[in-house]
């Protein structure tokens, strides 16, 4: 029973939440303006008397302003008006105002002592917002001289940075660490053992650069991995809020193809802002909820927020409700951007209330040009796309290269990524990368290559503490990053061979230039029993049958099938597949169920609903013989049907004595045809490829699941450019007992045992090499061997595999 302590726990919880600086001052120590006083002003005063706010004409922005106000009396500190205000009990005059919390005794005492001590103020300090205004135009920085023969521009900049600070240059990582890091970073997968061996054995001095090139030229792997990044950035997903009421459109296929083709980033942005077709329209159209929404979330305002955040790293969410307190953007500017998108006059609302002003379409940086508010909408969007992507808009390039740097190096040059008004910790580095992007036709892969080939990227990651809000970031090397949910699951599937059978994203994903194959041309028809006016009685259940004889034993084969509404498929009496959603065709390797001689396929098919409606069954398959020749079996007029009578018992179907009739070819509904071309065809194409050439299904191509959500994949209702970097307890529970993960590990264990002939040494070696890209240390080898025993059983292997997959070393991209 722990309830008794509940009340007592509360104060403890509170003290953790309040920044320690609150209690930092010692009675005896001198008051430090920056550390002691600034936080108090920020908490209590600056919202109304700092930045652009100066209520009652009083501002705390600078020391001069405070002294000029007369609120502080340096000659007689204790009679300062400021102290009177903050200690007053008069609810009409007291500060903070009576509807806000009082300042604490300690805070008041600090202010009193600060005034008594002469109200010291660090010369550079101000609360005003515009202290740092990032440059807009691009700038090509002059590179410092190279040190220690490190010529790479990034290294020249960072080596100089470190030298100025007397900081050591982080040591380089070994080949294996580089290999794992680069593979996870650029295509999101673990390197295989074979890749590891080849890479380590390779004596080419340029092998790292060449490997980066190889990874980046894997257009499918690259697209699979970076799709996650862009889905987060553009809040695109395959399921989520809004789809149910058709208030949201995907850009999945457009996005995926853009990544496969490595479309220049300026073109991508143009097509997102001013969509040439509906394929990329989903981004600017946002998410429309049914019913009324607040003024700060109308579609034009969502447009303003999304465009500003995704492409410029501007948080327009504040300014779309009122002039921002945190940066220079105003309500008028947020609405100006929104009006570019709006189809009708847009009235400005402050905090959800109209202020009697109509927005005029305008771009955020008029020094680069402007949109014509009188032009039609399509033209306005075009003009915006032009202004956004003009090489003169350095902000656009800086924003995206900063995001890429963050992905590869673990910490933005400007950080957080969506506060691009913040001063970068190295302006030259940011500007250099931005210039590289623009001068290479906005080629994102080029920038990734530049980063990944630098010594900085290839150096040991920093051991870091949790970054706090007021901390000064000092670059000391890359930071380890937690695997994303997608990287983690892809890695698990890669290691266990247990990836899901098919993708859910509505995209076409094939190797470039697939070999045309006669085999892959679909020949099946939709079939059923007799139709009445093209329909089938509601609730009707039939058995469909096909008999065929094979002259030789088969060595391989595959079937893809679906049914409107449901089916169960039996081959020679064994149930091998079932489906309840015709939109989700099933894909099954059926070669082990057929045999030399006579074979029977039977399918119990059911038409749901309680009224007549169209129904159909679709079956496409191939079988291969040992001489390489193939045969095809598909649903067509040669099939027979009977009305379902006998039930399947114990998974077996008994059709003895039944009377069979020829089936009818059902005219395909257009929705069916869509499923065939978009899903059945790719599944068949995939099935004819040799196993090692098949594309593994990647987590980025699946709908969000509870497990992925738990592991940090966002819901994508909002733009998310930075995911949580730690693991929570609820996630850890999932990692410990989630059923699909446990299933994958079980499958993986069986596979590992089979591929190593159950040899303990081999199991340990393979596991460490494939999961961690290194060999186990003697101590690790001893521990794992002890746990496995001489004749490892599957459960022992599962547990070892789990333990390795949970190591921070595995879960981090280091």
């Amino acid at each position: 029973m722990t309830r008794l302590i509940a009340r007592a726990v509360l104060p403890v919880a509170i003290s953790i939440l309040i920044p320690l600086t609150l209690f930092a001052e010692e009675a005896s120590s001198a008051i430090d303006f920056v550390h002691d006083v600034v936080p108090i002003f920020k908490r209590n005063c600056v919202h109304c008397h700092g930045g652009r706010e100066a209520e009652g004409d009083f501002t705390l922005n600078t020391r001069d302003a405070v002294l000029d106000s007369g609120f502080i009396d340096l000659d007689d500190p204790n009679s300062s008006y400021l102290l009177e205000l903050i200690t007053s009990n008069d609810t009409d005059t007291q500060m903070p105002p009576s509807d806000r919390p009082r300042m604490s005794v300690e805070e008041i005492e600090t202010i009193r002592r600060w005034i008594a001590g002469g109200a010291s103020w660090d010369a550079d300090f101000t609360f005003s917002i515009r202290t740092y205004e990032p440059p807009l135009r691009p700038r090509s920085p002059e590179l410092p001289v190279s040190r220690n023969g490190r010529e790479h521009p990034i290294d020249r900049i960072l080596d100089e940075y470190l030298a100025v600070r007397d900081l050591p240059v982080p040591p380089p990582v070994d080949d294996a660490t580089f290999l794992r890091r680069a593979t996870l970073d650029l295509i999101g997968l673990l390197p295989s053992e074979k890749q590891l061996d080849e890479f380590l054995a390779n004596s080419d001095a340029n092998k790292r650069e060449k490997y980066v090139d190889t990874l980046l030229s894997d257009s499918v792997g690259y697209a699979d991995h970076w799709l996650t990044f862009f889905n987060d950035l553009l809040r695109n997903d395959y399921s989520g809020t809004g789809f149910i009421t058709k208030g949201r459109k995907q850009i999945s296929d457009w996005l995926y193809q853009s990544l496969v083709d490595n479309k220049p980033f300026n073109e991508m942005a143009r097509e997102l802002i001013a969509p040439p077709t509906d394929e990329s329209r989903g981004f600017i159209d946002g998410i429309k909820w049914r019913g009324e929404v607040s003024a700060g979330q109308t579609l034009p305002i969502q447009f303003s927020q999304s465009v500003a955040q995704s492409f410029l790293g501007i948080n327009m969410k504040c300014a779309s409700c009122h002039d921002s307190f945190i940066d220079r953007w105003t309500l008028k500017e947020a609405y100006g951007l929104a009006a570019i998108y709006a189809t009708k006059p847009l009235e400005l609302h402050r905090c959800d209330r109209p202020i009697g002003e109509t927005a005029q379409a305008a771009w955020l940086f008029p020094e680069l040009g402007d949109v014509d508010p009188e032009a039609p909408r399509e033209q306005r969007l075009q003009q915006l796309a032009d202004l956004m992507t003009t090489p003169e808009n350095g902000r656009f390039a800086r924003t995206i290269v900063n995001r890429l740097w963050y992905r590869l190096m673990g910490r933005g040059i400007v950080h957080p990524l969506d506060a691009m008004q913040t001063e970068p910790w190295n302006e030259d580095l940011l500007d250099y990368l931005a210039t590289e992007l623009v001068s290479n036709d906005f080629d994102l892969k080029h920038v990734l290559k530049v980063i990944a080939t630098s010594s900085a990227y290839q150096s040991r990651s920093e051991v870091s503490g949790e970054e706090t809000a007021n901390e000064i970031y000092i670059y000391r090397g890359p930071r380890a990053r937690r695997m994303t949910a997608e990287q983690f699951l892809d890695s698990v599937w890669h290691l266990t061979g247990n990836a899901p059978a098919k993708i859910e994203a509505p995209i076409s994903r094939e190797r470039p230039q697939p070999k045309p194959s006669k085999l892959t041309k679909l020949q099946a028809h939709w079939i059923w029993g007799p139709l009445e006016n093209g329909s089938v009685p509601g609730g009707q259940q039939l058995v469909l049958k096909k008999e065929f004889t094979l002259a030789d034993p088969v060595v391989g084969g595959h079937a893809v099938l679906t049914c409107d509404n449901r089916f169960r498929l039996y081959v020679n009496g064994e149930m091998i597949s079932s489906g309840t959603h015709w939109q989700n065709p099933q894909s099954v390797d059926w070669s082990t169920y057929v045999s030399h001689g006579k074979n029977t396929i039977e399918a119990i098919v059911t038409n749901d609903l309680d009224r007549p409606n169209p129904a159909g069954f679709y079956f496409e398959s191939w079988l291969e013989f040992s001489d390489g020749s193939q045969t095809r079996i598909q649903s067509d007029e040669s099939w027979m049907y009977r009305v379902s009578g006998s039930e399947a018992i114990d998974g077996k179907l008994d059709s003895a004595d039944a009377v069979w009739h020829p089936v009818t070819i059902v005219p395909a509904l257009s929705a069916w045809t869509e499923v065939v071309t978009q899903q059945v065809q790719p599944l068949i194409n995939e099935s004819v490829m040799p196993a090692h050439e098949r594309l593994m299904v990647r987590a980025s191509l699946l709908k969000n699941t509870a497990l992925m959500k738990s592991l940090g994949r966002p819901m994508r209702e909002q733009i998310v450019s930075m995911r949580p970097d730690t693991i929570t307890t609820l996630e850890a529970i999932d990692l410990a007992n989630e059923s699909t993960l446990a299933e994958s590990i079980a499958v993986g264990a069986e596979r590992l045992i089979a591929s190593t002939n159950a040899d303990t040494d081999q199991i340990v070696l393979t596991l460490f090499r494939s999961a961690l890209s290194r060999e186990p240390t003697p101590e690790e080898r001893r521990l794992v061997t002890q746990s496995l025993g001489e004749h490892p059983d599957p459960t022992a292997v599962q547990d070892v595999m789990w333990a390795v997959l949970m190591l921070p070393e595995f879960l981090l991209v280091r």
Partner: protein
Amino acid sequence: MNFSGDHGVPERVLRREFLNRLSAAGAAALASGVPRLLANDSLGAIEHPQPRADACILLWMAGGMAAPDTFDPKRYHPFEKGLPVKEMLSTFPAIDTAVDDIKICQGLENIASVMDRGTLIRSHVQPDLGSILHSRHQYHWHTGYVPPQTVAAPHLGAWMSRVLGAPNDVMPAFINIGQRLEGIGESEELKAFTTAGFFGSEFGPMNLPYPDQAAVSVRPPKGMQSQRFADRNRLFRKLVDASPDRDRMSDYQQESMLRSMDAAYRLLSSKDREAFDITLEPRESFEKYDTGRFGQGCLLARRLVESGARFVEVTTEYVPFLHWDTHNDGHTTTARMHREIDRPIAQLIRDLEDRKLLDRTLVIVASEFSRDALMEGKPGSNANDQAREKVDALGEMKHYGLHRHFTGGSSVLMFGGGIKKGQLYGSTAPERPLVAIENPVSIEDLHATIMTAMGISPRMGYEIEGRPFYVTEDGKGRSVDALFA
């Protein structure tokens, strides 16, 4: 890492960089993804009343529970062919309760018998959000904010989890029982608020859609005996220690990962996890609750709160057009819902009382809005009429019931946690429109009341992306003091 502990960097460089960053109005911190507690206020003393609850159970009547057919009976008309729909107010007669001046609907006799333990609010009102989408109103009710929002709003359970944690630190603080989030209509919209939002998943719900399967969620993987589970964990810890990377373990990411792994292991191997297993409940007690998933959920909630969970929601489950979401055949469906909720709710109250937990456990029975036979939304609303059978007079039984969504006045029950006993608060008009006419209680104020009871100031807030975000919308909620004893 702190200012003075930064080795090797010249002091002047640090000082300058520190100032620069601070001067940028703390923009970096403000706009970062990590929420910060707002200034000193937030946890400031709650003047009145003193918080008494340390656990909260929300019994959610998902889909719009019709007040006139549950806790706010009006003029009753039995089914009668040809009865004009406009004559239909309540489809159940009123019955007496343990409190003299409170009558509720027939079918809720058990709840009637515990009415003297709590307060019945009949004047809860919701804003009209235009065309009704249940999940949107549920989002509003559960987070206090109308979707969409520019930041992901936390569920009220996540607020309690974030601010208070769980009384028993082995237990998850926020547990959500009975709602499937996959394979049903509007599931994505439900997920949108069944979340800790910007607080991060640490404070999010543990979802247990099937109470009788809940034990599985906190068990080692299927088929793994506890000895093997312990061995596996031991191997993991040894491998962590043996890692050549061990010297780099001061890294906070690695440390926090290990802490979480450890916390998960402690729950999955602890005695406390038995709280999740309702099959361990004595037969007799189990049967008192067992009216189905909701009843079992109430039992599970009691066990979890006994073991130190902070916030537990049990829902009758929202599935479009099912359960309380009566778009037709409302009377028959409501009669079934009465049977489903009546016994377990009353039993929960009695059990908590017997265990001396009721005073410290706030139990709330609420729904996203009420229903009416005639009126969609509230007077003056332009919401679409979503009744499935649009008739002027009753033709058959399926026309009998309250088939439209009504936001002008609904009922909420509150028990325990310092709430006044045997009280009726607020009222609705005796004739249509059945709007709240006395002491209306908004969502903000109801939340403020709940949070106050739990010891959280309604004005508590966090700063996220530079925006102050409060536990009640814009910090405006005021607790309804009259509800407290």
